[in-house]
């Protein structure tokens, strides 16, 4: 009996020992991929990037409100520069670092193993690098000093912030290196590139246009660097028509619809009308884009609400049907913008060819035609003394600033960067502003919670983590 007991008592141990197979082998998620092709990451990051810059979601992209293209009807927080209630800086920060850059970066690490042709590898890497530079450009011009050299490394969970100007120089170097690697005779991402479908000549123009824009952004802060950058970009070949524009073609059906359609039409909400700031300018200038940008108001004419004030939706003009349609393309860089940059370059004495007026006229014409106007519209418009480059009032910054602001309608982020740099047009204070017009974003609130020491150092380095702290490129 004793023996039996011993046998029985040792049973549990035997049972457990006999179960000692590889228990941990079952801990692999059968429903998720552990490895994916690099092109799938590139496509996703490209799409998310365009979505982020195109979005009008009040929880993410409120640049249209800051530069007073639109204002909110009832819930006017963001129109009055309240960035906290909806954690706007956090939304942009996370989208760019986590949803865009990390996927581009991961694609780069996978290219060498899943693309066999070394020339195709080089193209893929260069295209990815150009998109990364584009993304970094937005981050550094929005926040100032940001994590860069230590960023995108999960083994360093608390990256230090780098000096914005230093980052910027590195970005320009990376851009040059990437342009040099683009090879039109080799294959590449192809259709996985949802902007140009893998057309390398277009990519070269796109990269040089970006370089032109980046060079001009620092024209007030570092004229030497700006000049060399702008001149070499212009010489290498930038956009020459609207056909070159960097656009992502949204589709008419979900899920790849234009996010503006989702926010304004699909939601059925009535949150935005245009501002009197914008309408009054367009009206004063008899701008043919008025009817292309906006709907008619309750009195079958055009009017806008006071920014930041309570505005009756029915009373005022709203964003035009065209830009709120589901398949309206997302534009991340275009010909009109390039011509404005060239006009400015001429004014600054950079050697890019042509006259300021020609570039200005080309820019305005490109914008009018992009929005559906005709050559005749453009000619008539430019003939007006208030628009004509030689007779319009103000300095070149004022003239270009005004027209660029109009042309960048619906591209709030870019308009905001240009407005800070050119300082025109003057934007009146909204109804109940929390601050002056923001000239940068505060850091993501998570950085205070998680990356506190580095955050504190960065905030002190730029002169305080405030929306009114001017960034290095914004001299005036």
């Amino acid at each position, binding site marked *: 009996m004793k023996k039996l007991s011993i046998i029985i008592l040792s049973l549990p141990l035997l049972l457990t020992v006999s179960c000692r197979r590889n*228990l941990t082998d*079952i801990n692999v998620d059968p429903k998720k991929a552990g490895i994916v092709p690099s092109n799938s990451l590139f496509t*996703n990051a490209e799409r998310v990037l365009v979505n982020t810059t195109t979005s009008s979601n009040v929880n993410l992209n409120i640049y249209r409100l800051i530069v007073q293209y639109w204002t909110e009807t009832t819930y006017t927080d963001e129109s009055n520069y309240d960035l906290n209630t909806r954690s706007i800086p956090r939304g942009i920060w996370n989208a760019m670092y986590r949803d865009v850059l990390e996927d581009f970066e991961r694609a780069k690490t996978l290219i060498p193993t899943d693309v066999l042709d070394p020339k195709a590898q080089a193209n893929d890497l260069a295209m990815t690098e150009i998109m990364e530079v584009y993304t970094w450009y937005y981050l550094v011009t929005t926040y100032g000093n940001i994590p860069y050299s230590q960023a995108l490394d999960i083994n360093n969970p608390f990256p230090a912030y780098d000096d914005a100007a230093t980052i910027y120089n590195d970005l320009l170097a990376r851009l040059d290196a990437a342009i040099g690697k683009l090879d039109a005779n080799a294959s590449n991402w192809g259709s996985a590139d949802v902007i140009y479908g893998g057309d390398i000549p277009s990519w070269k123009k796109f990269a040089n246009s970006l370089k032109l824009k980046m060079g001009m952004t620092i024209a007030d802060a570092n004229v030497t660097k700006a000049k060399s950058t702008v001149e070499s970009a212009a010489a290498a070949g930038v956009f020459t028509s609207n056909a070159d524009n960097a656009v992502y073609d949204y589709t008419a059906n979900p899920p790849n619809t234009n996010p503006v359609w989702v926010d304004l039409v699909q939601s059925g909400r009535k949150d935005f009308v245009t501002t009197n700031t914008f309408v009054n300018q367009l009206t004063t200038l008899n701008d043919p884009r008025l009817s292309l940008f906006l709907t008619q108001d309750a009195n079958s004419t055009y009017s806008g609400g006071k920014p930041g004030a309570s505005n009756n939706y029915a009373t005022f003009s709203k964003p035009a049907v065209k830009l709120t349609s589901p398949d309206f393309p997302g534009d991340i860089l275009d010909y009109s913008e390039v011509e404005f940059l060239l006009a400015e370059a001429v004014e600054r004495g950079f050697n890019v060819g042509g006259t300021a007026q020609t570039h200005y006229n080309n820019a305005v014409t490109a914008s009018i035609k992009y929005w559906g106007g005709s050559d005749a519209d453009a000619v008539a418009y430019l003939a007006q003394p208030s628009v004509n480059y030689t007779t319009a009032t103000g300095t070149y910054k004022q003239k270009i600033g005004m027209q660029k602001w109009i042309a960048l309608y619906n591209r709030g982020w870019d308009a905001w960067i240009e407005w800070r740099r050119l300082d025109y047009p003057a934007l009146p204070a909204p109804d*109940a502003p929390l601050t002056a017009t923001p000239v940068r974003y505060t850091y993501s609130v998570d950085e205070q919670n998680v990356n506190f020491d580095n955050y504190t150092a960065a905030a002190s380095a730029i002169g305080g983590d405030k929306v009114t702290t001017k960034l290095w490129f914004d001299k005036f």
Partner: protein
Amino acid sequence: MRKMLSLLAVLVLCTAMAVAQNRTVSGQVKDAKGDPIPFATIKIKGNNAGVAADANGNFKIELPANASITVSAVGFETTELKVGSSNSLSVSLQSSGALNEVVVTALGIKRTRNSLPFAAQQINGEDISKTRTSNFLNSLSGKVSGLEIRQTNTMGGSVNVVVRGTKSLLYNNQALFVVDGIPYNNSNTNTTDQVTGRGGYDYGNAASDINPDDIESMTVLKGAAASALYGSRGNNGVILITTKKAKKGLGITINSGITVGKYDPKTFVKYQKEYGGGYGQYYEDPTGFFLYRDINGDGVKDLVTPTSEDASYGGKFDPNLMVYQWDAFDPSSPYYGKARPWVGASNDPTKFFETALNTNNSVFITGGSDKGTYKLGYTRTDDKGILPNSRISKNMANFQATYNITDKLSATGMLNYNGITGKGRFGTGYNDKNMMTNFRQWWETNVDVKEQKDAYFRTGKNVTWNWADPSDLTPIYWDNVYFSRYENYESDARNRYFGNVMLNYKVLPWLNLMGRVSVDNYDELQEERQAVGSVATSFYKRFNHTFNETNFDFLATVDKEITKDINFKGLLGTNIRKIHNQSILASTNGGLIVPKVYALSNSLSPLDAPTEVNQIGEVDGVFAGATFVWRDMVTLDGTIRRDASSTLPKGNNVYYYPSGSIGFVFSQLVPTATWLSYGKIRANYAQVGSDAPFYSTTDVYDAVTPINGNPQASVNGTKNNSSLRPERTKSTEVGLEMQFIKNRLGFDVTYYDAKTFDQIIPVAVSTATGFNSKFLNAGTMQNKGVELSLYGTPVKTKDFSWTLNLNWTRNRNKVLTLFQGSQNLQLATFQGGISLNASLNQPFGTIRGSNFVYTNGQPTVGANGRYKITNTANEVIGNPNPDWIAGLNNTLKYKNWTLSWLLDMRQGGQLFSLDLYYGLATGITPETSGLNDLGNPSRNTIANGGGIILPGVTEDGKANTIRVSNTNFGQYGYRYSPNARFIYDASFIKLREVLLTYSVPSNIVSKLAPFKGIDFSLIGRNLWIIHKNLPYADPEETISSGNLQGYQSGAYPSVRTVTFNVKLNF
């Protein structure tokens, strides 16, 4: 296994007969439940001779003729009885106090409370089932110290069951439920959106499937020492449920109850009656409060309500003002094309609530003989909620049978089936399907709910008050509430099978072996709908979920007297647990093609790939325990368990947890002290470990729907980690139990301190890394606290008794470390810009948001007369943890009448009310209108003497005197106020339960064959909120169970219920 001591009790006498001279009488000492009482002392009266009963209560004694004996045992009242002529005796002892309560402890092992060296509180099943609530978890509130119950007011909503505070920073903190030794899954399927107040349904937690009528008793094992044998799952405390066991002979119990419920107006909005719909003075007519359109075609512009505006900062009510309202544009309405006087609604949203109705019927049959016993039960409950078109039905069948194959070998089988169907569960959070969001936050006070009801039933269409515009009759933000209830409803069904087969082999009198295989399996289907014509894009969504847990147990137990004074109990066991959790979630895309066809194939755009989850896990455990009891005075207890888990990395996946406890009944040293009936101190220490969440050791990508044939993928925002280690909790506990004056008064107090460290959590990292978080072992959380149970019987006579029972709990919780330099771990963000956080050196779950800027402790008002607000929304503004919670129960018994009532209290703890954040801004409640300090209507323009002065000081510290406008919306609400203004104290005192029971006297029942007992009960629940500080809502209301507490949005009112129940025993 040896039967041990007893439960609460009544005295039953044995029959006495004529006796012969000096004969041997054998007998058994039992408690009221019929369980043997070991080691009782049997003495012959008038003679010091006596014997002791053995461990099974059996004794033999030589008796003279006509002798009387006295029988005594620790914790029982000494009983004297005259021995008749029979040679066998059955002696029942009445328990004195609760000490001899047989408490079911870990792995179903029964022990007397006397020998327990750790805190464990037992509740009689009757105390749970008699309240007749459809979710028995609600009836635990206030009844156990150390146990915090948070219940939602939604029909069938989940219940938060937390023992001794939140331990895990990000994962499950709910107590483990164990039914008859088998873990009972209590997860819920509430989505992240649901628990963060962004909408969705609270489908309740799975433990609500347990049939309250089948519960014999419930034990709450609070500390790690008590639950260490359950391994990591016992980390959060264990609620052990013992179901009713069959007895010999036939017994039938029928319970039938009906409950009606009404919403409690104290917990709902009061509407101001002065102003109607609109956001302020900026519309079209000359007054600025109305739209100005020619509606009747007479060429003159008419006043029209701004129908798109879901606020009540509109025109002042004036019966002489004729205004076209929403119904003027509904061709089916009697007011079509007509203007109506501008007055407040006759039927405000309080008329939306219906009378809740619940029926609850159960029958239990038990029977058996020497060869075996069986139990068969069936319960049906039907619940209709306070919202239209809502109901939940449950069918529960319970079967259990034991067959004694031989004297030593018995087989037991058990199977429980639950079928639950729900329809029209309440939408939650900030969402169009939660009418409370509408009624509390965004409402026009001129809208008559009954007219909305008529409009829906007239047309069957979404005729809402909230048209986009009189010229654009599409709903803009809010659907007609009745359309929403009847068309945008969910439905769900769950089928659950819970059962086991068990063999029990009593090898030797002191050695028992048990082998068992048990299965907990359920599948559920949840279907959600959004009808064509709603504000939101129409959809159909289905979620299929299957859960399976299989346990293989082997347990050997030893119970032996080593010497006369020392009893040894040992156990050795193994447990293999396999879990398989699978689900698939699919939804239509871009809308529905054909209205009212809720099928995936009815999708306008091609479907996105459904979300599939397939989780497989296994934990293999082996454990041992030993208990030595010396003279019923000193108890030494030790356990150890070793687990190997599949979810940790190879090499790190084995962990051990030891526990050690000591109990000392010091009153045995002073048996002469008459004032002290009982005294025990106890202390213990335990370590438990936990494994990792599924699949947190290897990285994966997220698949994204392809574009034009191009695949898309994204790096998952959480970095997994292949070098995780088990997380650990170390806990210590000391306790003191004392009883006085013949057990009329007693208390049980426990102090505990538990630290959970090396927590496996996805720690927040700078998003500049490209990730939100990385799985690491990091973070320490401490919970320490005091639990006190106080019980007394102030009055006790033959016919009347008054007993009271207080449970008081105070838990202090603190985040001691996070990952490296992290100051804060954000748990979730919520609408309104607030977040719940684990912040360094703060209690768990702190509420962060924007705050006032204080000057000399007073809110600072800026030059514009409005409050200055902090630069970030990252200030700690609230703490959701209560200072203490308590339950006080009083029971009065007079003859066959029993009256008891339970006061349930919570002191402290804060919540953020999104309802008031928005509702005060939109001018729904009376404080947003009325007169200002000048005696003028505050909503007048400042020029007309209106406006208000906010309490506070200006930047120079002087009292604020700047008047701000209250003409447009926002002044009292979120628009010009920091989040901190909407933090409220969540304290309450509630009259939770009132029970009046009448048991028909036995002399009457005996004439009413076949009845053995008839009880009538009248039960009230949540009848009266005696005290609270949160206006217009129930401070206890929460969106879901889980770690995210302290946030209200679209809170449901509490429901006062009254039940009439009849219980029949045959």
